[in-house]
């Protein structure tokens, strides 16, 4: 059989955003975890609909630490977005700086989250209200810790291991994308946990 060839040797070894397999993997993760968040919020309102009053027998969580965390989380969008941009430009020194700043933001957010747990005004084993509040914030905390850990691993990689392949820049870019998910889901969860019980 005669063959004519299509030469692909000139194509790049990696690409960003929806061209990369990393992006698709991450979108799959976000689809699954986003659904889990949505369903846990659904559980919250379902349990509320079965209750005489809500919260069942407690004050709503104190606003102080949760709101501070909301501010920190929103502020972290800026360094995160900056890191994503320099990753897509292939600027490795800037990526190192960005990963450090993002890690510091992440650690601060985890510290405030620890304080938040002390002012929820309910324990997980008090009643169903306590259970669902702890479940939702626990799920979100799992994602905060996971993404901060990812950022630390990437920072170590960029500081102490070289030379690096260019596709590690895609990893930095998608790590930032994962953080967007952590941020936007906190916005929704803050509204549900902190504001909804006060509005009614």
């Amino acid at each position, binding site marked *: 059989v005669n063959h004519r*060839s299509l030469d692909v040797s000139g194509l790049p070894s*990696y*690409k960003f955003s929806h*061209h990369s397999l990393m992006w698709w993997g991450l979108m799959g993760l976000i689809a699954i975890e986003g659904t889990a968040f949505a*369903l846990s919020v659904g559980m919250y309102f379902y349990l509320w609909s079965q209750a005489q009053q809500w919260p069942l027998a407690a004050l709503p969580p104190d606003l102080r630490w949760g709101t501070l965390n909301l501010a920190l989380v929103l502020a972290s969008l800026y360094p995160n977005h900056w890191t994503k941009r320099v990753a897509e430009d292939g600027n490795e020194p800037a990526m190192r700086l960005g990963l450090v700043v993002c890690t510091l933001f992440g650690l601060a957010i985890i510290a405030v989250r620890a304080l938040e747990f002390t002012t929820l005004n309910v324990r997980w084993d008090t009643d*169903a209200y306590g259970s669902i509040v702890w479940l939702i914030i626990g799920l979100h905390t799992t994602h905060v810790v996971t993404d901060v850990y990812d950022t630390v691993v990437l920072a170590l990689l960029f500081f102490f291991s070289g030379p690096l*392949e260019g596709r590690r820049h895609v990893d930095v870019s998608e790590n930032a994308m994962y953080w967007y998910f952590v941020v936007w889901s906190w916005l929704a969860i803050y509204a549900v946990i902190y504001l909804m019980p006060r509005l009614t």
Partner: protein
Amino acid sequence: MPSVMLASTALILDRLVSTHFFNPAEGGDALLWQHLFWFFGHPEVYFIFIPGLAFMSSIIPTFSRRPMYGYPAIVLSLTTTAFLSFGLWVHHMFATHIPDLGKSFFTAASMMIAIPTALQIFCWMTTMWKGRLDLRTPMLFVLAFFFILVLGGLTGIMVASVPLDLQLHDTYFVVAHLHYVLLGGAVFPLFGAWYYWFPKITGRLMGERLGRWQFWLFFIGFNVAFYPMHHLGLQGMPRRVYTYPQEMGWGSLNLVSTVGAVMIAASVLLFIANALRSLRTGMLAGENPWGAATLEWATASPPPAYNFERPPVVRARDPLWEPVSEPPSEPTQVTGLAERAREALVSTVLDAMPSHRLVFPHPSPWPFLSAVTVTLMFIGSIFTPWAIVWGGIPVTLAVTIWFWPKRRETLENLAVEKRP
């Protein structure tokens, strides 16, 4: 999946750390479990079904000797089924105290599934009608799908309506319905797929005569075993109870069912014998024993680990049925991938245009070891919540080592790397 994950997490938290999700005494609700379970469980039924539909869509064009009729309609139907499947879970809960308006909504949504399903079935029937049928064993299983799945679908429409469901809930009618749907939708196509792809996997065809015997034993045995259950259910025989009082008069129909089950068992034994015998003495298959159109039939049987020496360029949905001009006017194969690295071509999502060259990692035990650590963590979490804390450490270590780039591989990859 997220739903069953969340439901199981809530359940194990109730058991291990005294949360109250499903405890009515402390504001929890037992029915919440059913909601979460069926929000997973009903889509799950369709996820079992979808590979079966894909087998159908592969086998029918091959044995009808023509491209699929209404391909876009079939794809859209599949997507519609997946979408609708998330809005029907309450039809498993018609016997609970859900408001009637809610039940009516879920009745309508459940009946709507008949629309995309029928669309697919009519597309397949048109493909066969307009084609030239070749009734080999895989095709027999496909034809049985139509008979059995349509019967299961019709009883599905029956139990989707609330008043009938209240009568039939938890009876053998439901057992009959779910076996007609799931065996018709998944198991018959799966057997067909075995006969269809066996030659590609092993290089030898399965015996055709034994295949026909197996098919007829299975088809008749299935109906003998499960059809009587419709009547048993209508007579009130409850499911999930292993026995029944003799004076109910359900004995003879149950005996018929048992005879059918024995026929099914014989058929499966025949299938195993056929597969084992064909492994050694089956007819040699060659590249494309069925004259099929899709890419797997363009390489040797069994295929080498690398599939193709050079990846073929694909321009059509049925690439092997496309006429090729001699000498070819368009490129037919891909060159320029690294010879000494595990490099693969990544193409764009919608148009499948060449996008970039991706190097895959060398073989490594770490994905497997990660899986082992995850398994240990979850098995431990059945007994103590601390398993998540302590078990999380090996999981984290294993996935980090899995990710951490190996220096030798990095240098190899850098040698062939091109930045965008």
